[in-house]
Structure formats: C-alpha cells, structure tokens
C-alpha cells in the first residue's frame, strides 16, 4: 500500500546513515522534550507525588482509587464519552464537508471562505461570545429572544440545568471544530491532481458523490488520518470549553470531563501521581479510539 523508495540495503543502519543524519536534530529534541516527559509521567502514575517532596511508590494504588473510589472520575468518563461521541465524528465530518464544498469554488472565493471559517480559531477566546448568547439571565441574547417571542416565560438556566449545560458545550465545541484539521483538509484537496477528475468523467463518473467516493476520498487518506488524530485528541481531551463556559468544577459536575479531572488533581490539588494516572488512562483511551478510526478510514473508497 505504501509507496516507499527501495534503497539497496533497507536492513542496514550504515547504508542509511544519511537518513539518520537528517532526522537526528528532530529526534534528539523530540526525545528530550516529548518522550522523556511522557515516560516520567507514566512512572509517576505509580507513585504518590506532590511535586515538592520525592515521590513515594504506590504500585497500582492510584488506578485502584480511580476506578473504585472516585465517583467524580466515573462521572467524568460518562461526560467525556457523551461529548466525544458527538463532537468527534460530527466535528470531523463537518470539517471535511466544509473543506470539500470550499474546494469546488474558484481560487479567490476558496481563499475567502477558508479565511472566514478558520478565523474564529485564530483568536484564542473567540468562543466566549457564546457566553453572551447563552447567558442565563433574562437579558442574554437567546433568553431575551425567546422571552420576547413568548416561547418561554422564565429564562433558561443554561449554566445550571445539566441537559442545557451539556448541550451548550456541544454546540460551542462543534462551532470550534473547523480548526487545524479543516486547514489540512483544504490543503490536501489542493494537492489532488485535476486530470484525475477529467479521466474519471470519461470513465463514467456521473455525480458529485461518485467523484467524492472514487477519486477524492482515496486521495485524501493521509489528510483524513491526520484530521482523525486531531479529532480524537480534541474530543476525548475536551476540557477548556466546559471549564471556561460552565466553571471549574461545573455545578453538580454536570460537564466535568477527564481533562478537567486531570487539571483538578494536577494543578489545583497538586496530586501529580494521581493526575498522571488519569493521563495514562486517557492515553490508552485515545490509542484505542485511534485504532478503531484508522480501520474505518482504510475501508473508505474501496
């Protein structure tokens, strides 16, 4: 499946020393600032560590506590799944759909719409505008609108009612989903060779949808895998949006996610060993999700 260059000696280190030389700067920095911290964090997940004193080895105690003695953690798992199952796939498909639709336009319009859809991702806190939209007081945009229409007679408590809290988080997260994954889709669609479409038209491709399935999607697999990783880490790692909109911790833990729980123990309670155990759990969760999604992507276009 992969189109790799056949070197004379693919099993020898020495024959490929040029390649190692090219990768060396990246790999050294990657090992120092990524692999090493991850490995130490995995080690800390078996300890009790308050950052100030040396860690005390606990074995599997942190994990036992997580699954048997921490009702908020269970709540966080439920909430995270609830969010991820909707935000992950819908956000991913929305990113692809928008990139695909934009790609049909003339170059100038394409650049314009790419900028429009990506612009909210440039400003870090742009989603705070939803704070006004879903403000729970009667003057909040949405409440005022519904009150004027007479649809409701008392304002909706967007930040108190668990069902509304989760709905608002999902709406805002979906609105934010056209980020870097969307940009990589736009870029990926640009590299598809146009003559393939002409050849396809001659070969009897009749509709937009056939063209999408038989030409566009098979050419987009690398970008789809890239976007999938971003969607998985973004949706299972959701935390900033609920914390900013609903508070940390949220009322009744109604929008408490794994990432919120991790931050609670990591940066507020300074139980770094326990926080590391949560991180390891999220890590395993994402690896599983990724394996599943990659399997789906392989089927596409066949």
């Amino acid at each position, binding site marked *: 499946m992969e189109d790799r260059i056949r070197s004379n000696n693919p099993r020898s280190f020495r024959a490929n020393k040029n390649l190692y030389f090219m990768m060396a700067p990246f790999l050294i920095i990657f090992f120092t600032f990524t692999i090493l911290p991850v490995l130490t*964090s995995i080690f800390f997940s078996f300890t009790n560590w308050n950052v100030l004193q040396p860690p005390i080895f606990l074995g599997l105690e942190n994990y036992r506590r997580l699954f048997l003695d921490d009702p908020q953690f269970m709540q966080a798992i439920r909430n995270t799944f609830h969010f991820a199952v909707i935000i992950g796939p819908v956000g991913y498909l929305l990113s692809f759909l928008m990139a695909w639709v934009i790609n049909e336009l003339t170059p100038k319009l394409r650049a314009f719409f790419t900028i429009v859809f990506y612009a909210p991702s440039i400003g870090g806190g742009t989603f705070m505008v939803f704070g006004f939209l879903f403000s729970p007081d009667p003057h909040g945009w949405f409440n005022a609108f519904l009150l004027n229409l007479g649809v409701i007679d008392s304002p909706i408590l967007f930040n108190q009612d668990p069902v509304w809290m989760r709905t608002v988080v999902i709406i805002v997260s979906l*609105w934010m989903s056209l980020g870097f994954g969307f940009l990589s889709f736009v870029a990926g669609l640009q590299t598809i060779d146009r003559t393939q479409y002409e050849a396809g038209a001659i070969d009897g491709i009749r509709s937009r949808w056939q063209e999408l399935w038989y030409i566009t999607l098979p050419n987009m697999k690398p970008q789809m895998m890239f976007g999938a990783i971003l969607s998985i880490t973004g949706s299972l790692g959701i935390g900033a949006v609920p914390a900013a909109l609903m508070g940390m911790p949220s009322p009744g833990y109604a929008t408490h996610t794994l990432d919120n729980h991790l931050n609670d123990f*990591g940066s507020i309670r300074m139980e*770094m060993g326990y926080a590391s155990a949560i991180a390891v759990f999220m890590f395993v969760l994402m690896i599983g999700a990724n394996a599943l999604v990659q399997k789906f992507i392989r089927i596409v276009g066949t």
Partner: protein
Amino acid sequence: MAQTAQQAPKPGSMSGPTQLKFGATPPKKDRHKGSRSWLSRILGGTGARSNRTVWGNFMMILFLCVMASLFLIPVVMIINNAFKPLHELLIIPPHIFVRNPTLRNFQDLGPIFANTLVPFSRYLFNSLFIVALGCIGQIFFASMAAYPLAKYEFPGVHLINRLIVLSLMFSGAVTAIPNFVIVSALGFIDTYFAVIIPVFAQTLGLYLMRNFMGQVYSSVIESAAIDGAGEFRTLWTVVMPAVKPAWITLIIFSFQSMWGVTGGAFLYNEALKPLNAALGQITAAGLARIGVGSAIGLIMFMVPLVIFIIMQSNVVETMNSSGMKD
C-alpha cells in the same frame, strides 16, 4: 518531469497525485462556456464539471453563506469592540456593532507603554524573534525528519512513526512538570531557548509533513537521484515544492501558536518576555482596563490573521501557476 505525465493514475488509485502538478498541462476540453450558468462559473475550481447540477451548486452556495455568517459573529465583535467607548463595552446585553466609534482605546495604550519597565519595542522584538526562529526551525527540522520517515525504508522507521502518533495522545498537563525539570536542567530557564528549542520537535507539524510527503511519487524522487541529487537536495528541490500546501498550512499553525507564547514558567527576565506577556499584564487588570483590553484583543487577533490571509492566498497562487487555471 515530462515523463511523469504519462503515468496518470486511474481514478480511485491509492497513491498520491502530487507529482503530476509539475508541468503537466491538463488537457484542454470543451467547457461549454456559453451554456454555463453564473453559478457554475463561480464553482469552477476542480476541472471537468459536467457532472454538476445547477440545483446542487445553488444549495452549496446557500449553505456556505449561512455557515459563514454564523462563523463571523465573534470576529465582527472583536473588531467592533476595539472601537467601542467604555459605556458601550459594559452594556448588558452587549451589542455586536459599535454605535459611536472612538479611537480612545488605542490612544490609552500610549501612556501605559510609556511607563513600562522595558520599552514596547523590546517586547515587539522578543515576539518577532521567537516567532520567526520558532517557525523557521519547526518547518526546517520537521521537513528534514518527515522526508525519510515518509519515503524510505530503514531500520526503525516504523517504530519512530508509531512513537510520533502515540506522542500526540499524551496530555500536556502532566508532562509540563517533567518538561520544566528538563528545561531547567539544560540551563534554558530565562533564555529564548526555553521557548524556541522544544518547538523545533513539535510532533503535530512533523506528522502533517510526513502524511503529505507520503503522497509524492517515489518515481519522481528516484529520477532526481539518478540525476545525482542526494537525499538532502532532493528534499528541498523536489519534495518541498510538491507539498507546498502542507508547509504553508504549517507556517500558519506554528505562527499562530508561537504568537500566543507568553514565556510562562520559563521567562522571568522582563527584557526577554514577548509582547503577549506584556499585553496579558495590562489586561490582567480586568474591568478597569476593559477599553485598552479590547484594543489589545484586536491587535493580537489581527497579526496572525494577516499572516494567515497572506499565506492562504499564496496557496491559491501556487495552484494557478502550476497549470490548474482555466
């Protein structure tokens, strides 16, 4: 490059198409210019469009416009807020559009920066230095590592590829402290290195480059090798031009993340802090500085936006100059 045009891939073929962009002119076809509606003339991006219906085109434009207006609200609000007088900023519920525009918020920035410990120009220099070096370094090192990982077979290639994907899935919140320990053990605290060097090996950028490079045909690379180019030269002369949309996307992304750097736990010397940190100190006063705060919000938003617009129109130009245009 001429021979590459002959092996036009079959529709649905798995391998990437990138190489055909060079010099391959698309066959001129009868586009039925006269009979095309204005809609299909706008929607002319991808070549032969005989399989497009007018109804479908119309729905697409409608869909795009509705979505665009939804996405633009916060952007419009950031721009308008910067020009609102104080009483309009504090009104509840807030208006999207400004009623009595003023430049007061920007003028108020002057006295504030006149009294800072370090002059404004120093903050600006720090920001530009960190952003420029960070972006260039990230793209340079990521491309150099991505190319062998995408296109060659050597001992360890699959292991490294797997490690890179895995590393994207570990929460940054718990690695922050081990990371800090490493940065300080290397003596990087209170130097630019602390915020620049780790960025050189950001895995997301490498992963993006690797995935795009995997689509460049090996035959193109091999023909460059026959001409006597080494791996390093082939990368910069053959592979990089083919994946231009990828590194332009990466420039946008890394500029944006470097522009957001505050130095946080790593930079304590005021003379080394970037603009973002200084502006963060000003807006930290909250309600008391809400006027200048909104002006700062606009400035911090506009810089990456301008870079984004320049880069994005560059992608379009590339495609025009490589024979894709009508």
